[in-house]
């Protein structure tokens, strides 16, 4: 035993309680022989509680059979009043050597039990052992209090919320930082969902529900979602957690960190907004450049051929060829102007379609016939042609879409390959038209951007395909105005592509008409 510890033990405060003065004197002398200087004796057990509470003894020597309050009752009283983690050893000294008394005393909270007449050396050794245990216990307790204090200091200085939860995701611990983030005290969360499920916005909770199973299945968890603070404000929370398993691999619990990432989210939203604005600006610049390019080509023809026509000795054949070219370019220019007008009306939300029950196959026939005069008619063929119900549509606009898809298909099948048009009824209320070519095909990364405004296909073989990049965008807008959808499928470059759109079928009554 080290000297300092010996001193602590010698200075220990020992309380001896016995109704017989002779016994108390005997004990005092005995303790004095071993160097104990701080011994309090007491004859009336009724005084024990005030003394214990006021001047906490380090050890109590207690007689069992006393008037007013016997030793068992004293033990029970002390057990009630002394907190569990404040370990005060109580040694019962009694002449009652029955095993019943021993069991009762130990059960009532006695630490040790010695029967009279006792071996003085044994008493002293036991006193010393119990005191030693108490001081070790005290030292451990103060160290753990200090650690708890340090931990609390650390936790309170950490903005992130640290928590522990059961495998089912119920909080067993949550740091006070939760109050700053949620506006609610930590105590409100104990036993509740560790992702603060009680205050997560319902639409975000739909994604989050069942997270403990997912987290333990995947071994990790990192999600961002929104909560509503006590003051009603909505904040973004990021929660990451770690699955804790015991040595045998069984799920022991979940530890996690939650932080408020609202500022970062807002910042990135701002950045996204700015990027979107820049994209719009870029698209505008691009539009000016594309439109001017597309306008310049026909203009170059007008200017050039008219100047040539004004020259002398132009042969009639040349004249005819040049005027025909001017005419064709004028048609192209007029189509471009139409596209631009469509674009500006669509973007301004000004397109009002007069719609009527129409037969899609008739619209398609009309569009296809227009290709006969260009010499491409022979490449066009009907594929599957199912009997389909009418659609409610504006025939001109749908015809425009069909023409656009077919002329694209012809244009992008450079070897004069066939183009197939199919009419289908994939569902009762849906009519589908598909235009399939065996041409260039579309690279996978282009498919999602194909219907964007001003987007032009870029292929490794052909570079950027010329054009305004407006046609498919306008098609998409027109089909969507009809409540339909448009998409493209392609097995990749060199494997052709299929453009399809679907329109809702007209209600049967409207299509058949009333009988009278």
């Amino acid at each position: 035993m080290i000297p300092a510890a010996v001193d602590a033990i010698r200075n220990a405060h020992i309380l001896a309680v016995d109704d017989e003065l002779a016994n108390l004197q005997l004990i005092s002398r005995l303790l004095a022989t071993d160097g104990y200087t701080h011994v309090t004796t007491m004859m009336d057990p009724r005084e024990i509680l005030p003394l214990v509470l006021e001047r906490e003894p380090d050890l109590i020597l207690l007689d069992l059979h006393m008037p007013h309050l016997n030793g068992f009752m004293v033990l029970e009283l002390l057990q009630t009043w002394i907190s569990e983690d404040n370990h005060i050893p109580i040694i019962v000294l009694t002449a009652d050597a029955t095993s019943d008394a021993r069991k009762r005393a130990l059960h009532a909270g006695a630490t040790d039990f010695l029967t009279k007449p006792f071996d003085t050396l044994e008493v002293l050794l036991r006193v010393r052992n119990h005191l030693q245990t108490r001081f070790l216990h005290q030292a451990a307790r103060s160290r753990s209090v200090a650690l708890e204090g340090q931990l609390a200091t650390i936790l309170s200085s950490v903005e992130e919320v640290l928590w522990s939860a059961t495998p089912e995701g119920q909080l067993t611990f949550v740091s006070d930082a939760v109050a700053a983030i949620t506006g609610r005290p930590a105590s409100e969360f104990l036993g509740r969902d560790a992702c603060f499920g009680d205050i997560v916005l319902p639409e975000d909770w739909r994604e989050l529900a069942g997270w403990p199973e997912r987290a333990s299945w995947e071994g990790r968890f990192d999600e961002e979602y929104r909560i509503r603070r006590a003051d009603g404000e909505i904040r973004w929370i990021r929660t990451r957690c770690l699955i804790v398993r015991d040595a045998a691999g069984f799920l022991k619990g979940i530890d996690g960190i939650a932080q408020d990432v609202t500022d970062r989210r807002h910042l990135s939203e701002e950045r996204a907004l700015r990027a979107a604005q820049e994209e719009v600006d870029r698209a505008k610049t691009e539009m000016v450049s594309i439109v001017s390019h597309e306008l310049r080509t026909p203009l170059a023809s007008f200017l050039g051929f008219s100047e040539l026509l004004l020259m002398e000795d132009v042969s009639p054949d040349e004249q005819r060829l040049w005027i025909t070219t001017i005419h064709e370019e004028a048609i192209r220019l007029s189509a471009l102007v139409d596209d631009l007008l469509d674009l500006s009306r669509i973007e301004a939300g000004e397109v009002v379609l007069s719609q009527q029950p129409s037969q899609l196959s008739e619209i398609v026939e009309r569009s296809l016939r227009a290709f006969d005069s260009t010499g491409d008619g022979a490449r066009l063929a009907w594929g599957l042609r199912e009997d389909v119900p009418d659609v409610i549509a504006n025939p001109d606009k749908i015809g425009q879409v069909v023409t656009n898809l077919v002329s694209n298909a012809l244009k992008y099948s450079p070897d004069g390959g066939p183009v197939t048009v199919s009419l289908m009824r994939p569902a009762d209320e849906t009519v589908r038209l598909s235009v399939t070519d065996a041409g260039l095909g579309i690279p996978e990364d282009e498919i999602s951007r194909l219907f964007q405004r001003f987007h032009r296909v870029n292929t490794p073989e052909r570079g950027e395909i010329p054009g305004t990049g407006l046609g498919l965008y306008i098609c998409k807008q027109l089909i969507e105005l009809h409540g339909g959808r448009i998409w493209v499928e392609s097995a990749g470059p060199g494997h052709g592509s299929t453009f399809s759109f679907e329109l809702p079928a007209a209600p049967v009554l409207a299509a058949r008409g009333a009988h009278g």
Partner: protein
Amino acid sequence: MVDVPRILIAEDQASLRLLLTATLRRSGWRVTEVSEGQAALRAVAAEQPALLLLDVGLPLLNGYDVCRRLKADPSTSGLKIVLVTARCQPQDKATGLAAGADDYLVKPFSPAQLLAAVRAWLGSGAAGASAGSGGESAP
């Protein structure tokens, strides 16, 4: 009579190709026409033209790339190349010149402008049949 230099026209828009060939042929130049970039490279090798009128937006291989390849090859680097384009932003012109083009003709252009540009590089080598203005040529 001196052999009239040959001019290669690489332009994918049929109407503009016709305009270029008609204008140049009327002025007595010999003309070969192609409609995409790879064909332009083949025609340069086969016909050894004196001048290439090169559209920028060609399929398969665009005009800038055609220009870079020809200027990088010692056997063709002497060929005069005039880029013909509707791209008129300053950076487009910079790209064209960086690719090694000798001149830059912006659409829309008049036949007179075209002929002037051609004469600037080839002299009035086809003056005999010229319907344009006479005589003066750039150094």
